[in-house]
C-alpha cells in the first residue's frame, strides 16, 4: 500500500495519491478511486494518517447537507414561505410553519412581519435530498434572525480550518477578541462583539485564517496577531 504523498502536501486534480485497495478514503468528493489507484479531484491539502487518506479542498463552493447550520439572506417571500440565499447551487426555502411557533394563517397574518427581504438569519437545513431545493428551519437553539453584529464571507471549503480541531481555532478567536462568533458552514460568519472595534479585530483574524489556511502553526500566529491588533486599538484588559 504505497501512499505517494506527504501529510499537508498541496495536491492538484488528477494527482496520484496512493495505490492499493486497502487505503481508506475519508472524503467523498475530493478523492476518487479508479481501479486500484486513488487520485485527488481538487486542489487541496493531503491528510495522511497511516492507512487513511483525505484531501481538504482549498477552493470550493458550499453544497448543502442535512443538519448543517448556515447563514442565509432572505431574497424573496411568498404567501407562506420565504426564499433564502444560502450561497449554494440551490436557493433554500423556509416555510412559515418552520419559522413560527404558532399556526400560520395567510389571511390574517403577513410574512413580512417576521422576515423581510434582505434580512439575515441563522438556520438549519432540515430537508435536502438533491431532487428538491433544501428546506430550512429556524426552530432550535441559536437559530433565528440576525439583528446585530457583522457578517463576513469566506471561501466555504476553508470553514473547517477556521473551526480547527474540535473548535480550537474559533474558540481561541472568541476568547481573545471577546466576541460571539457563529460560523455558517456556507462560509458566512456572524460576529458580535462588545464594541465595533472588537468585531473588526475578529474579522481581520478570520480573514487571516482564510488567507493562510494551508500554512502551519496558524493558531499561535493568529493569537499573536489578535493581541497586537487589540493593543493597537487600546482594547486590552
Amino acid at each position, binding site marked *: 500500500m504505497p501512499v505517494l504523498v506527504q501529510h499537508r502536501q498541496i495536491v492538484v486534480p488528477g494527482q496520484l495519491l496512493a495505490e492499493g485497495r486497502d487505503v481508506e478514503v475519508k472524503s467523498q468528493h475530493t478523492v476518487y478511486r479508479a481501479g486500484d489507484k486513488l487520485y485527488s479531484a481538487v486542489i487541496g491539502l493531503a491528510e495522511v494518517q497511516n492507512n487513511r487518506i483525505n484531501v481538504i479542498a482549498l477552493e470550493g*463552493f458550499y453544497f448543502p447537507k442535512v443538519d448543517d447550520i448556515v447563514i442565509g439572506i432572505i431574497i424573496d417571500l411568498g404567501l407562506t414561505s420565504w426564499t433564502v440565499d444560502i450561497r449554494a447551487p440551490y436557493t433554500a426555502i423556509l416555510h412559515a410553519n418552520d419559522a413560527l411557533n404558532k399556526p400560520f394563517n395567510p389571511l390574517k397574518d403577513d410574512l413580512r412581519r417576521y422576515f423581510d427581504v434582505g434580512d439575515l438569519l441563522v438556520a438549519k437545513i432540515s430537508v435536502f435530498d438533491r431532487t428538491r431545493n433544501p428546506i430550512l428551519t429556524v426552530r432550535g437553539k441559536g437559530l433565528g434572525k440576525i439583528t446585530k453584529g457583522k457578517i463576513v464571507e469566506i471561501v466555504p471549503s476553508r470553514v473547517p480550518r477556521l473551526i480547527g480541531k474540535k473548535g480550537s481555532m474559533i474558540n481561541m478567536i472568541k476568547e481573545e477578541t471577546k466576541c460571539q462568533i457563529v460560523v455558517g458552514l456556507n462560509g458566512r460568519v456572524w460576529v458580535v462583539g462588545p464594541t465595533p472595534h472588537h468585531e473588526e479585530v475578529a474579522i481581520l483574524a478570520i480573514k487571516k485564517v482564510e488567507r493562510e489556511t494551508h500554512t502551519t502553526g496558524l493558531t499561535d500566529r493568529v493569537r499573536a496577531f489578535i493581541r497586537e491588533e487589540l493593543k493597537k486599538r487600546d482594547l486590552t484588559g
Partner: protein
Amino acid sequence: MKLEGLKLINEEGLRIDGRKPDELRPVVMEVGVLKNADGSAYVQQGNTKVIAAVYGPREIHPKHLTLPDRAILRTRYHMVPYSTDERKSPAPTRREIELSKVIREALESVIFVELYPRTTIDVFIEVIQADAGTRTAGIMAASLALADAGIPMRDLIAAVAVGKVDGQLVLDINQLEDEYGEADMPIAMMPSLGKIVLLQLNGVLTEDDFKQALQLAKKGIMKLYEYEQQALKKKYVEIKPE
C-alpha cells in the same frame, strides 16, 4: 496557396520561429486572474493568449434546461474582435460554435457532473490574441479555471496541436505553419489517466504519421501538464505566513 520561396523549415532543421520540431512555444500560465469569477486562468503559448472564467455550480436559467440527474455544462469559446489580423466580428461564427461544442464535450468527460444535479457550470473562454493553437490553449485555461473554482474533476486537461509542415511532423504549430502546412491535429488528454478527450485532424496524415504525431503530442502534453500543476500550486506557495 503557398507563398513563393517560403520555407517553413530551414537547412538546419529549425522552424520559422527558430524552434526545433519537437519544441513547444514559451508558456505562461496563471490561475485566479479574475476576481468576480468563481475560478479563472490565463494561458499564453507563444503569441496565443487565452483567458478562461468559470461560474458555478449554480442554478440554471432558463429553468427548462435543468437535468434531474446531473449538472449541465455550458461552454463558450469566443475570439475577441482584436484577436486576429483583420477585425473579427464579435458574433459567434460557425467555427466558434463548433469549438465550443468539442471543448464542452472534453470538459464534460473530466468533471463529476453527476454530483451536482439540477445545476449548471458555465465556462467562458476568451481568445485575446490568436496565433494558432487557440482551442488547445483554451481547453487548458478552462481546466485550470475549473480547478481554481474547486469543482471536483478527474484530472486536468493538457492539450497541444501537432502539425505537418514541409513533410515533417512538428509540435505546437503557430499561425504560419497552420496556414501553409499540410496538416494540423489538436489533441487534448487527461495525462495522468492517459485518456484522450479531444482529437481533431485537419489535412492529410498517413497512418504512420498519425502514430508518430500522437507520440509527439503526448510528449508535449506531459510537459504542459507539469506547467499546469506548477501554476495551480504557485497560487498557494506565494502566500507565506506573515
